[in-house]
Structures are given as structure tokens and as C-alpha cells.
């Protein structure tokens, strides 16, 4: 075991005194360090401090703290949200007095004050506001985004940035998410290993309840709430935009749902359930956020320093799933890159997509939002021959609208390729029609 001798005893003075513990790993090789990539001592310390890293998402508080205490000095953070009282049970950089302030600002100020010497640059807005040139400045991207759409956007952007002639254009993406006592963390080397789009079916959306169930045969309290949310609001308060953070709006929905439930003898509608269904609330606790964010930052630290092998090296494990509700269980594995991935695949292979021949184009367009392999909310669809439906431009929308009533069997053929685009993503998705 070698040691690049900077420290000679356990107590050091001088500028690195604060980093005594971290330096044990930056100065010493271990049994698993790769001698070709790990350069202990000054070299690794300087490169760690130079690395500019990017953080975002609901795990932001944890990520900023962890990156700052991993020795990173230049951290950028983006968050469009303001602080809500329901964040205080886990987002530990925020206090009751901060409610209403921007998360990115408050978090950055807090961590800069607590960990001296780290620079945190906040931007209060959407990650989509920034372009490739912005993301190009970072060594890596660490995300704990709660929306699948934002995840897919950053993923597609980073894949699109890769220039084979320029190794610096490859930005590792480290991504984590939680739900209750469960979570996952993964490392993506864009174009080299399985990307968010390859993994899309692991984040299948919850199946929506059919509209006819809501409208005619509700059975569960949730059905009554969805009815109030989707149908009753449109009927009675069309002119008001529903704001799920407005207690008056939630109360109105709750009362409507309750009345409907009483009509059908369905027990169990509560205010809290109404809020949960309407806002699609996912339970979240400090513990799980800590686990997943720390796992992401542990990988970021290993990636930046090579103090130990990181997840995500091609042909090795790149994905860790954590389950804490029944004992503790992790499953760490290699998620395989998919050749037919519309974002990072070969670009020539269309992904098979099941289509019922008798469904209308309208129904097909709506079904794309729910299909685990698509999850596209505002798709525009073309085939090699023609534009089936284009929503991105008003003129084209008018010209193609008449197709919506047609049956799929009359518009496409078995095996035909469809190219689907969606404003939310900087890429196009190729699918091959497979009739059910």
C-alpha cells in the first residue's frame, strides 16, 4: 500500500487540515484502486477541486451537502420550485421562515455558509432553460429529479452532446429517485451504457382508471376523487384554472368527491386522500432521500477521483435498487443498453409498438402517454409517407386534425415505421407498428 506523503501524522495543520479524513483516500491507494487511473496526492486533489459539478431535483439538499463534503469546490444547482411547508420533513436546508423562497437560492446560501470554501451557483428555473453550451462546462451531472419528463430531457440532451472526437463532451449522468422506503441510484455514461430511455419501462406510469369507470361505475374512493378532479371541475368551474396548492380548490374537490361517494355508498374519501390523488403525491422521508442521494454522490466522488471503482463502467453494474420496508435489500446489476433505444440506440432500429388496428388515431395519441415504452404526452406522429398528426404547429395541427377520427388500420401498415416527436424531448422516437 503506497501513500503519496503529504501528511506525516494524524494531525495536520495548514489548508488541508480540514480535509484530513478525505485525504486518507486521496493520498493512499487501496486494494481495488486502478493504478492506471488513480493518481494519489496532489494530482487527484487538484482535479477534484477543479471539477465543476451540477446538481438538481428533490434530492438537491442532500446532494449539495454531500458534494460539498466530498471536496468538490464548484457546484451549480438548478431548481424551479419554491419551498413548501411539506418539504420541511426532509429538505433539511429549509426552515419554516423560508417557505415561499426559491429552493436553489436558499440551499446554495446555506451550504456556502456551512462549508467554507465551496462555491455554489444557483439558478432558479427549469433545467430545460439551459442549453448544451451550459451543460458542457460540467464534469458530471448529479440528479435526483422527481419528474420523469425532466429526467428524459436531461438524458437526451447529454446523449446528444456526445462528440466522438472530443472525450470531454461525454458527461456522466448520475441519477437517483425515491418512493417511501424504496429508491434507486444509477450511473449513465451517455452513448456508452444504458440510458434513462433504455430504462423507461422500469418507471412505468401508474395505470389510469378508465374514464367510463369514473363517469358511471365508481367503486373506490379514488374513483370519486378523480371524477371530481377530471369531470366535475370541468362542468362547474371551467373558468377557473385548478391550482392543486390552493386549499379552497382541494376543499371543493373533496366535497364533490365525498358527495359522489355517498351517492354510491363508497366509504373512505378523506381530505388527505383527495390531496394525494389530485397532486399525485409520492410519500417521501428524509432517511430514503439520504440513502439515495449519498449513493449518487459516492459514485460521483469515485468517478471524479478513482479512489475506488465506480458503478457504470461499461459492462459492469450500473444500477442499484434499494428496498427498506422489509429488512434491507439491495439489488445491484448491469442494466443493458438497448439497441432500439430511441435516444442512445443505433438510430436505425425502430422499437416495436403494439397497436390495436381498430383504435382511432385519437385513442392512439392518448394511449402514448400511458404506454411504459413511450410515455409521451404531446406526440406528433409521422410515417415515411405522411404526417398523421402534428401538434407542434397550429397550422399543421389544423391540417392533420381530420386524421384523428380514422382507424389506425387505415393509416398505417403492419411493420411500418412511425417517427414520433414531442416538444418535451430534444430527440425523435422511432417505432414499428405491430398490430395486436
Amino acid at each position, binding site marked *: 500500500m503506497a501513500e503519496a506523503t503529504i501528511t506525516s501524522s494524524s494531525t495536520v495543520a495548514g489548508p488541508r487540515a*480540514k480535509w484530513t479524513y478525505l485525504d486518507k483516500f486521496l493520498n493512499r491507494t*487501496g486494494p481495488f484502486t486502478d493504478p492506471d487511473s488513480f493518481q494519489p496526492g496532489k494530482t487527484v486533489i487538484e482535479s477534484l477541486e477543479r471539477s465543476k459539478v451540477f446538481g438538481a431535483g428533490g434530492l438537491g439538499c442532500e446532494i449539495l451537502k454531500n458534494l460539498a463534503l466530498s471536496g468538490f469546490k464548484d457546484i451549480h444547482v438548478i431548481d424551479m420550485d419554491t419551498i413548501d411547508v411539506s418539504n420541511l420533513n426532509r429538505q433539511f436546508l429549509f426552515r419554516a421562515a423560508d417557505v415561499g423562497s426559491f429552493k436553489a437560492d436558499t440551499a446554495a446560501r446555506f451550504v456556502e455558509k456551512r462549508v467554507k470554501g465551496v462555491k455554489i451557483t444557483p439558478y432558479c428555473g427549469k433545467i430545460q432553460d439551459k442549453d448544451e453550451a451550459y451543460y458542457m462546462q460540467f464534469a458530471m451531472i448529479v440528479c435526483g429529479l422527481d419528474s420523469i419528463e425532466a429526467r428524459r430531457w436531461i438524458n437526451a440532451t447529454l446523449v446528444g452532446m456526445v462528440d466522438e472526437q472530443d472525450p470531454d463532451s461525454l458527461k456522466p449522468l448520475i441519477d437517483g429517485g425515491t418512493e417511501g*422506503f424504496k429508491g434507486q441510484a444509477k450511473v449513465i455514461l451517455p452513448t456508452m451504457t444504458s440510458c434513462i430511455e433504455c430504462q423507461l419501462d422500469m418507471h412505468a406510469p401508474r395505470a389510469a382508471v378508465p374514464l367510463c369507470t369514473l363517469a358511471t361505475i365508481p367503486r373506490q374512493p379514488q374513483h370519486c376523487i378523480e371524477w371530481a378532479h377530471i369531470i366535475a371541475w370541468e362542468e362547474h368551474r371551467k373558468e377557473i384554472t385548478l391550482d392543486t396548492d390552493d386549499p379552497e380548490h382541494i376543499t371543493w374537490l373533496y366535497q*364533490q368527491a365525498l358527495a359522489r361517494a355517498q351517492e354510491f355508498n363508497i366509504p373512505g374519501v378523506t381530505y*388527505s386522500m383527495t390531496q394525494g390523488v389530485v397532486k399525485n*403525491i409520492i410519500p417521501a422521508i428524509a432517511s*430514503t432521500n439520504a440513502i439515495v442521494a449519498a449513493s449518487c454522490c*459516492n459514485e460521483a466522488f469515485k468517478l471524479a477521483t478513482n479512489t475506488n471503482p465506480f458503478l457504470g463502467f461499461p459492462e459492469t453494474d450500473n444500477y442499484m435498487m434499494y428496498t427498506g420496508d422489509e429488512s*434491507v435489500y439491495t439489488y*445491484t446489476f448491469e442494466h443493458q443498453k438497448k439497441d432500439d433505444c430511441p435516444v442512445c440506440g443505433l438510430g436505425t432500429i425502430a422499437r416495436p409498438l403494439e397497436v390495436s388496428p381498430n383504435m382511432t388515431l385519437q385513442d392512439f395519441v392518448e394511449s402514448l402517454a400511458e404506454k411504459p415504452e413511450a410515455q409521451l404526452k404531446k406526440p406528433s406522429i409521422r410515417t415515411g409517407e405522411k404526417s398523421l398528426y402534428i401538434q407542434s404547429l397550429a397550422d399543421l395541427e389544423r391540417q392533420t386534425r381530420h386524421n384523428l377520427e380514422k382507424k389506425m388500420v387505415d393509416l398505417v401498415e403492419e411493420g411500418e415505421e412511425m417517427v414520433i416527436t414531442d416538444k418535451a424531448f430534444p430527440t425523435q422516437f422511432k417505432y414499428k407498428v405491430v398490430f395486436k
Partner: protein
Amino acid sequence: MADLPPPVQGPTAKEKKYDRQLRLWGANGQVALEKSHILLINSGPGVVGLETLKNLVLPGIGNFTIQDSAVVSEPDLGVNFFLEEEHLGGSRAEHTCGLLKELNPDVNGNFVSEPVESWISHPDVLFPYTLILATAPIHPLVLSTLSAYADTAQIPLFYVHSVGFYSHFSVHLPPAFPVVDTHPSPETTSDLRLLKPWPELLEYATQKTANLQGMSPDDHGHVPFVALLLHFLEEWKKEHNGEVPQNYKEKTAFRETVSKAARTNTPEGGEENFDEAVAAVLKSLNPPEPSSSVKDIFKAPESLLIRHNSPSFWVIANAIGLFYTKYGVLPVPGAVPDMKARSADYIELQNVYKSKARKDLAEVVESVRFLERNANRTAQIEEKNVEAFCKNAAHIKLVRGRPFPVIPREGEVKFGGQARTLAQQLSFPDSLLPIYIAFLAWDKFTATHSPQAASSALIIPGLSPTDLASETENITSLAFTIVSDLVKEASASPDEADFATVKTQIGECVQELVRAGGAELHNIAALTGGIVSQEIIKVVTEQYVPVDNTCVFDGVRSRTAVFRV
């Protein structure tokens, strides 16, 4: 919409703040957290203990106390988020307590700066605490004292070790730690009793499937799948000497019958209720037999002999055991999954299950009252507790807590009854047991190299670069002794080549551990603090299933493993 219910009382400030967690453990769990008082005995760089507490202060534990005799030094500031420059030279217990308290004004925090060995020698000093969390390095005499206290006071003790890229924790729970509210995943909880229907359920099915073939398309497509399966089971029995489908082959054949009965001349080309019926065949056509771990609870000595002071869990367990002996099934839980059906038919079905569940509950309550009278118990067990037990009877868990090994200064590490299983696990290719053994050897080194008196400073391996090689060698040989003793204790005779591989792995783990020189890496401490705080929440709320009893995390490969030691 003429008469809407009166205006509602929105959620309270507290409900708003804790909304995202109350959706997991409910108001009961929150009350349990608020009643707890957690003691952290902190040492070393002291990060993992504080990161654990952070995740408990945020969701609102009632009280915490930090015992820590360290003085804040420069290196603390590079690893510990709950200290600032102005605290240099001050008490680490005092300042970490102060900054943790800022996280949640609802939580009371206290600190003790007195050295642990003198502090715990005061009489009754541990009395206020409902759970103890001790971090390594710790003097074996102190850890033994805590372990003995946990035994007598029957409170949980956690021992946590976070060194470099590795961490581990062990938990010593009381000898009987039952969990009723285990939160099983919804897919595993459906218990429809299709093979043991009661008369009202059969009656419901007959009524809903009368003239099935002649039904209008709309009616046919809305018969609840439970009624469909019961109907086709009756038909099947007529042709099979009154027997239900017994094995996989018969169930597949039965499924085929159901599938064929669906109408395909519909706009969708099929019927959703029949799809549901087909999908439920293999899952739902199993005899409702309780798992062996549940049956073991009925046979446990605490359940067999109810005394005036028996915990209510055992009284209810005994009563449900009686129910099981009498009927060969557990009480009906009463929940019905959503299914394609008309509102009124579904609600009616729900009521059939609910009435049966209430009837079964009434019978169990009667047994409980009988047991209470017999054992001269003064306080009656609340019916809602019996109800919770009946509802989740198939999924209740009993953890048999036990002390984890405290590494002795002299003599061997003993694994007792667990030796055999552990020795077997050693040979698994991706086993993390070598890391645990490296930790034990690390503890053994600290125990033997530190002065005998509990008051003396502990010796940490790997601190100085000059001793790194010799200390690594020393701990490796301690680890080899531990693993050889384990194999001997298990009377196992591992393959020589396999054993050599295990020793190589242990050697590497020791090397990685000593590399740290006792340092904590913030990420590993934060991650471990996350896991330990999840476990503490589970233990305090008596919900979900806790680790039994040791967990290891490998930050090199990003994996965990759980062992019973």
C-alpha cells in the same frame, strides 16, 4: 349537488408539515416517534451518528441526547455538516446538538460532554432513553455495559461502524419483538378464500352469475371476477368428484375453461372482467394456509401460556391460534381488490367480505376476553388492536432479538448457534461477510491495543503512514483467526481452494478498511445514517420489518447484505 357536506377543517399545521411521511406510518407511527427519546453515544469522526439523528429530527422524534466528549477540531469541519468554524475548540456534543435542533423546533435536544465511561457509571443514567445508538470506535467495556442494559431494560441497542467506503450496523432487539403492521405489498395481501367460500359468498356468486350465458353484453362484461371464478369452480367440481383444481396442470386447464367462456364479439375483442378472472387463477386458487413463521407464533411459549402481565400481542396471538385450530384458516382480512364491476355489485361484494371479517373478529375478541378473565388481567385489550391483528394476521412478524457479539479484549469471538449458517455464507461468491469479519478484526485490534481501562483513549489502526503496512498485516492475521475459529465452531470443512479465496477477500477488505485510518467518508456516513434511521423508525413505530440483526454496506460495489449473528 344541493346539499354538500359542511365546510371541512383542513389539515393542521403539523399534518401539513409531516404530510409526506404520515402517508407511510400514519398518526399512530407519528405518536410513537414523538414519545421516543434516543441516545447517541458518539465517537470517532462522529458523522454517521449525527447523520442518523438528522433523519430522525426531521420527521419529529420527541427527544434526543448526544453524548460526545470530543472537542471540535479542524478535521471535523471537512466531514461533519453539523459544525461550523466558530465551534472550533468547543464541545462537539453541545454544538452538534445545537445545529441539529435547528432542523425542527418540535424536537427536544440535549447533550452530555462527560466522557462516556464515567457518565454511564452514574446510577440510572440510561433510564430516560427508549433506544440507544452507539458508534464505533467504542471501548468493549462500554459496549458490554450498554448491551447488558439493553437486555434488562428491553430497549433496542444499535451499534454502528462507518469507516471509509465500508459500514456495518448491528441491532440488539428485545427477545420478542412482534410487528403487526408490516405493510406487506398490496399484491401479496389479497386473500379471497375462493377455495374455502362461506355460504354468503357462495350465495352472492350464484346470484350474480345466474343465467350467465343469456346475459346482455353489458351485464356479462360487468360480473365481478370473484363471482365468475366461484361459479366456474362449482362447475369444475361437478365434473371432478367435488374437488377443486389441485395442481398446476389442473389449474391451467381450469384457467382455459374460464378464458373460453369470455365473449369475443365485443368492440374490444374481449372482456376485462374475464381477463381479471384468468389472471387471478394461479394466484388466488391456493388453500389459505398461513406461513410457517405465523404458525410458529401460535406455538411460541409466550403464546401458549398467558399470564396476567403478558403483552397484549401474545393474548391476541393465542386467541387467533385458537381460531386457526378450530377452522384451519386465519380470520378473513376483509379487503377486496378493485375489479371490473358495477358500483352496487362491487360494494355488495365488499360487504360480504366485511361482514365475514367482522364475524371472525367477534369470535377472536370473545376468546381474548376469555383469556383476560382467566389470567386475571385488569386492563382490557382495545378491540381496534385485535382488529388490526386479524386484518394482517397472515403477515405478522416476530423478530427474536438477540445480543450481537461484543469483541472481547481477550479470548475468541463466539458465534454460537449462528456459526454454521455464517460459515456457509462465507462461500457465496458475492458474500459481504468478509467485510463484517474485517470489521470484527478492526474492533479486536482496537480492543487489544488500547489500554485496559475504559477511560483511556482508543487506538485506531492506519492513522500514521509509517504503521500502515504493519497494522494491516496485524489486523489481517486477527481476521484470519476469527474466520478460522468460525469454521471450527461450525465444524465445517471448507474446500481448501475456496477457503484460500475467502482469505484473499478478507485480506483485501482489511486493507481497504485500514486505508481509512479511522476516517469516515461523508457519503458513506450519510448513506449508512439513512439506513440506520429507517431501521430506528421501523423499530420505534413497530411498523414494517426491521433488519435481523446485522447489515453490511459495501461502498465500493454499492451493495448491502444482512446476516444474523
